[in-house]
C-alpha cells in the first residue's frame, strides 16, 4: 500500500507540475503592458465621510492612469454586505490622471454613521496602444461621527 501511495503522490506531483507549467505559460501571455504597481485604501473621516485613495504606478508615462471604477459595498452588521454603488471615472474626473503615476484621493462620499464600507478599486492604465485594469480589494472601514 505504501508503494501504491508513493506512486499516487508521484503521479500527483507530476500532474501538478505539468498543470503549473501550463498555467505559467498561459499567464505569461497576460503580462500587463501598462500597470506596474498599485494599492488602494478606504478611510473614514468626520461626519460619516468615506474616502477611497489609490496609488498606481505605470510602466512609463501613460495617457491615462488612475482608477477606472470603484464598486462600494455597505453593511449594517459588518458581515453581510450589499452593493452600495459603482462610480466611474467618466463621471468623476478626479479618479483619472496621466503620466507615470497616480497618487491621490479618488472618490469621497458620505456614508451612514455606524455602517461599514469596503470597496473594489479598479486600477487602470492606458495609452494609444491599449489599456489594462486590475482590481484591488480594500478592507472594511466604519463610518464615524
Amino acid at each position, binding site marked *: 500500500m505504501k*508503494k*501504491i*501511495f*508513493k*506512486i*499516487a*503522490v*508521484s*503521479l*500527483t*506531483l*507530476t*500532474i*501538478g*507540475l505539468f*498543470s*503549473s507549467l501550463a498555467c*505559467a*505559460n498561459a*499567464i*505569461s501571455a*497576460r*503580462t*500587463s503592458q501598462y500597470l*506596474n*504597481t*498599485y*494599492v*488602494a*485604501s*478606504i*478611510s473614514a473621516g468626520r461626519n460619516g465621510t468615506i474616502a477611497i*485613495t489609490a*496609488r498606481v*504606478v505605470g*510602466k*512609463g*508615462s501613460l495617457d491615462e492612469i488612475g482608477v477606472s471604477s470603484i*464598486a462600494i*459595498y455597505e453593511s449594517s452588521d459588518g*458581515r453581510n*454586505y450589499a*452593493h452600495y454603488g459603482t462610480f466611474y471615472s467618466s463621471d468623476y474626473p478626479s479618479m483619472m490622471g496621466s*503620466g*507615470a*503615476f497616480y*497618487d*491621490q*484621493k479618488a472618490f469621497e462620499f458620505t456614508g451612514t454613521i455606524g455602517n461599514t464600507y*469596503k*470597496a*473594489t*478599486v479598479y486600477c487602470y492604465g492606458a495609452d494609444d496602444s491599449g489599456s489594462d485594469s*486590475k*482590481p*484591488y*480589494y*480594500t*478592507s472594511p*472601514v466604519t463610518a464615524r461621527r
Partner: protein
Amino acid sequence: MAEFLRNSQNSGISSTNGMGKAEEPIQGHLTADPSNKRLYFEVLDEFTNWFLSVAPEDFDEDLLDAYLEEMNELSPLENPIDSQAALERFHERFPSLFEEQESAPLPANPQPSERSQRRYLGRLTTVAATIAAMMVTLISAQALGIDVFGFFANWTNEIFYFSGSPETTQPTKFYPLAVGESAEYESVEDALSEFQIDAALVPSWYPAGISSFTVSARVTDLGMGIYMVSDDEDSSLTLSISDFNEETGPTTIIEKDSSNVILHEAGGCVHYIINDGKWCNATWIVDDLQCVIGGNITNDEMLKIIDSIYEVP
C-alpha cells in the same frame, strides 16, 4: 487597515493584501543562484522521463526516493505538504471512492484480472488527480515567501507583495506637506531631505540613455509617496519611495510574470528582483519605507543600480 484578498461579496477566500484573485503560486523554488534552477530542472526532467517510462516491474522505490530527495535538496519547498494529512482529508471528503474497496467481500483466492487492474489503475488515477486538485488548492492558499524582519515576501505567477507588520518600532514620520498636497523637487535627495529620510535609497548609476529625472512627492491617506521618473522618451525608469503604517505593513501589489523572483542582498538588505515581461522591478523595505525601482532594463542593469545605492564614494 489591512487589505484582504476577498471578493467584496464573498467571504470564503482570505489571504493578504488586496490582490485581485487567488492565484497559483510558484512552488517554493527560490533561486538566488540561477545555476541551481537549471540543475533542478535537469533533475526534474530526468525524473519525469524515468517516471513516465518505467515499467511497473522495474519500478524502483529507492530510485524514486533518491530523485525526490535530490530535488528537495536543490530546491526545497518552503511550505512542505503533509501528504498523509492530505490523504486523510481526501478520505473524509470523498468516502465513496473507497466504499467499494472497503466493503466488497474478499475472494478466497484473489486472481488479478486485466479488467480489475484497469479499474484499479483508473481509480488510482482518479485518486491522484483529486489529490492533485486538493494540493493545488492547498498550495494556492499558502503564498510563498521569506520572512524578513516581520515582513513576508509573497509572490504568485502574476503578482508580488509583502505581508505582515514590522517587528521593530518605526521611526516618527515627518511630512512637510499636508494630506492632499504635492510638491516638486530638484532632486530625489532634496525630497528625502524634506521628509527627513536619511536612509540610503538613491542610486548613483543608471543605464545608458537615462540621464534626467522629474522628482515629486505627495501625501495622501495612504501616506507619503516620492516619485523619481526618468524624462527620457526611449527609456523608462521610475523610483518610488512610499511609507506604510504599522498596522497594515506594505500593501502595494507589484505585477510580475511567471519567472522566478531573484533575491539580491546589498547594504544588509534583501532586494527582490521581479520581472514582468521586458519590465524589471526591484523592491525592498527599509524601516517603514517600501522602495520600488522599475524600468525596461535588464536584470544585470538592475543589479548594478541596486549595488550603486550602497557604494561609498
